[in-house]
């Protein structure tokens, strides 16, 4: 089963980040690198990325066949997606165990969501 571990950046997580020492921040970053490596070695990692700042985001839309891009969001966004891990594991419990290893879980929280699949069913 595939699950995605979502890491949000929000006022709460930023406030926590402010209280961390330099050493704690380094450990935090290394923690993510180590987790990625551990997932890869265990054969559960599908993909994992950290995302650039929302100030670098571009909005893309198509109207009348024309692609329109605009920078943004300009408005102050309270919460944005900062990164994710996509994993393929045996079951929910294993997914929770991996999510618990994300450094964020120790300070704030991470969100675990099952991935929709294309499997059919019998009625």
């Amino acid at each position, binding site marked *: 089963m595939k699950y995605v571990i979502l890491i949000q950046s929000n006022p709460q997580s930023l406030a926590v980040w402010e209280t961390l020492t330099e050493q704690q921040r380094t450990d935090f970053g290394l923690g993510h690198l180590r987790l990625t490596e551990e997932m*890869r070695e265990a*054969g559960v990692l599908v993909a994992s990325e950290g995302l650039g700042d929302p100030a670098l985001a571009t909005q893309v839309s198509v109207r009348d066949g024309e692609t329109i891009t605009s920078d943004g969001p300009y408005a102050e966004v309270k919460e944005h997606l900062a990164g994710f891990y996509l994993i393929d594991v045996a079951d929910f419990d294993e997914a929770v165990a991996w999510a618990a290893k994300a450094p964020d879980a120790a300070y704030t929280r991470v969100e675990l969501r099952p991935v929709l699949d294309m499997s059919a069913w019998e009625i």
Partner: protein
Amino acid sequence: MGDLTSLLRECAPQALAAVVRRHGDFEACEDAVQEALIAAAQQWPSTGVPEHPRNWLITVASRRRVELLRNETARRRREETVWREPAPQPRGDDELALLLLCCHPALSVPAQITLTLRAVGGLTTAEIARALLLPEATVGQRISRAKQRIRDAGARFDRPASDLTAVRHVLYLIFNEGYTASSGDALNRVDLTREAIRLTRQLHRRLPGDGEVAGLLALMLLTDARRPSRTGPDGALIPLAEQDRRRWDRSAIDEGVAIITAALAHAPIGPFQLQAAIAAVHDEATRVEDTDWEQILLLYGLLHALHPNPIVTLNRIVALAMVDGPRAGLAALDRTAADPVLAKHHRTAAVRAHLLEMTGDHAGARDHYRRAARLTLSIPEQRYLESRAARLR
């Protein structure tokens, strides 16, 4: 080229089993066989297929296995003795031992599936990755981890576990994985449904007296027989009751029915046999209104007693509703309210919606179809449930 691929796939597990039996050490032997397969794929198209392709692979893999170990100087003397011995011969029960090793209880279920597809199915890492929709590196890592675990667990090829439960479960999961609706790159994907049937057929041939292996093979054949009419041209799911039964694969149904009939007559009953028997009752009805629901209700009752799980509970309620009416089904559904798994399961909402629709309560049915659509993780199923809700507008 397709012939060569299937020939190699046929021979690979037998060669691997023979080499592992001789040398032990699954990990190094698997690497050696992979190299022999690559050599065969490169050489045979120009040299022609050798007279005994399996023995060719065993000889080349055995040599390669020795070469791999020769590089470790400490072991040189021992290996030089092995070098002079004739290549091991394939043996009938090898493949079964290999299958049991791949489904070793020390491995996680995803690892068992991956290793079985590789070592017994003879698929390449890239083929497995495409079939399971995973990156190749992930599958490669999974295979090497699984091999390590087998070594660490001290699992021995010559003394494998004798319990086939895990093996049947893994084959069943491979079959289910194959249900994945075809997408754009379907042509490049190994059909896991066919692969599972092929491996289960081999196992059934090896162990004709195992009723549950027979039941599993029959279940796969009887389910796969409906494949031509299970989805519409746009990929949308068509429920059993609305499928064009003339398009079902009659020869697969006949074979499945024959296998399950023989198994039920001779072997102790088990959950796969019961599921196959239920599939057979459905498949034997040429029109949906001819379905023998009383028989199906009886079989679900047995399955519920032998191997209860939430899906069996729900399917039994559907059968009950078909025999005693939707209100009896709804009453039975209410009695399961305390079950926490069922309470969260999208199928519970789907069954309630279906039964409400049968009673004529369209508003209630619509709400529960919508709820079921929200809770399912399957996209085709979601589309199906949404369309049921929309139809009741």
